């Protein structure tokens, strides 16, 4: 292959990476893949790759003052290795993990087995009055809590004491619990450090009791309201919400918990 054709081929490979970055950014789908501080970097990267690819494509035939020899890689193989995994991934992605992958990321683990203790240690001590003051109360008497607050309370005996028996409402994605025989489900969100690959599930258990079949599809966003308890199950403390009402809700702008 001539150096000019090789430069054209490599420019196209780089432009395909650029197009993927820019497309996911423009479509808003990037929020499912990267934490906020990495998104502008990805945008800058996409634009930079576009400049690099286009510049080399447009000047592929020009003589440079100092020209390097051809790449040691087979140009077609290099092109294939750069473009094929990217293309297949774009075709296959659904912007979310399956429940099988989520189970590997802690969806069905107890918070005490998922690092809640370490995270909870960073939190200041609170009183019941402060908790009630800091959380909005719905018209029917449920205090609105962020899911991760309940998750972290599992690693903090003091907070468990404050929250145990409290009527709370919280939001997350719904997952059926395979061991729950239809009476248990999980409400979860993902905690993302940098990108989806390093995400961990932040779950609580829902005790649906005799509640009629919920109108929330598995994987859909739900608002669960009920009484929070912290029973010992399988030797580990679990946050269990005894659900009185479960209703579909719109996903928040930022679906994942972020390190900031």
């Amino acid at each position, binding site marked *: 292959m001539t150096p000019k054709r090789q430069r054209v081929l490599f420019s196209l490979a780089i432009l395909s990476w650029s197009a993927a970055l820019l497309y996911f950014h423009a479509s808003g789908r990037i929020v499912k893949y990267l934490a906020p501080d990495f998104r502008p970097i*990805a945008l800058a990267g996409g634009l930079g790759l576009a400049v690099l690819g286009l510049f080399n494509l447009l000047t592929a035939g020009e003589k440079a*003052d100092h020209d390097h020899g051809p790449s040691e890689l087979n140009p077609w193989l290099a092109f294939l290795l750069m473009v094929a995994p990217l293309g297949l991934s*774009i075709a296959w992605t659904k912007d979310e993990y399956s429940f099988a992958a989520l189970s590997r990321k802690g969806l069905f683990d107890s918070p005490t087995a998922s690092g809640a203790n370490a995270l909870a240690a960073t939190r200041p001590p609170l009183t019941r009055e402060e908790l009630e003051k800091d959380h909005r109360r719905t018209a029917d008497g449920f205090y609105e809590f962020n899911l991760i607050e309940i998750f972290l309370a599992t690693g903090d005996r003091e907070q468990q004491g404050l929250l145990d028996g409290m009527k709370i409402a919280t939001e997350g994605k719904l997952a059926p619990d395979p061991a729950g025989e239809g009476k248990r489900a999980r409400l979860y969100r993902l905690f993302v450090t940098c990108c989806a690959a390093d995400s961990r599930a932040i779950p609580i258990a829902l005790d649906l009791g005799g509640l009629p079949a919920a109108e929330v599809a598995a994987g859909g966003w739900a608002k669960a309201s009920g009484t929070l308890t912290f029973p010992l199950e399988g030797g580990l403390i679990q946050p269990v919400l005894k659900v009185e009402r479960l209703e579909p809700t719109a996903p928040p702008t930022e679906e994942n918990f972020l390190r900031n």
Partner: protein
Amino acid sequence: MDARQDFALAFLSILFEGAPFILLGTLVSGLLDVYLPAGAMERLLPKNRVAAVLVACLLGAIFPVCECAVVPVIRRLVKKGLPVSCGLGYMLAAPIVNPITALSTWKAFEGQSPLMMTSGRLALGYLIAVAVGLIVLRLPVGKVLKPSMLAEPASSPDESPAGSCCDHGCGCHGELPAVSPDGKLVAAFRSALKDFVDVGVWFSVGVALTALFNTGIAPGARWLDQVAQHPAGAPAALMGLAYVLSLCSTSDAFIAATLDRFSWGAKLAFLVFGPMLDVKLTFLYQSVLRKRFILALAAGLFVAIGTVSMLWQFWLTR
């Protein structure tokens, strides 16, 4: 079908996270290729070869780069005359010994002895990089660099492989010829294109493997719990985890901080080994280093970091 969707999400997220940093590295390397005179880096470092390694391993504090971006930069700097010993020392140290990584480690371990973990990480990262640099100083360069990096014979056994930076051995950089600015720009972008593809191919393969491990890591997670309190097994297991997960050094501390079943020593091993060697780096290193040297480096890093981490843990708990 589930496996495809899981692989795709992990693959794209790591690719999107890492690609801009590779671009940054290759653009810097392209500019260095065309605008930096041969031997300029050598002149910045002390004449004494041991002192040069000691200083090179601290350059990350001034030029902070993560492990994805550092490989293309090193490729070019070594070709431009940076001694191989200094290049490798910088390559291993820069992702750890830099202000961004120090800050993220501190933030991640707030409430869990941040000073101890941050200083321990920076100190061990620096010491290991210096040790590798000093060992490479005594090796023939042909045993370290892959043949394509050896465009021309080295001026001394441990020194740069090239008076020229070019694969084609043009020898045109000892004295840069008078050239037009446009021609230089084309050359810089062309150099960046070649470097990006050379590194991007290995990165793509490495990310694909990482995504496969990342989404199928469940059996390992249960096994990890069992070895968490073992004095030698815990650091070994976390170094293995760091290798598989291939996290960025600017953010891996946030994962380490949640591994609350593990000792400080095991977490330190995770934080130092990961930025120096992981799945994607194994592939990226192949654009610079000989495969046999990479194997020796991997074994050396594993043993050295594991041993120091165990001793550190022993000292903390005695």
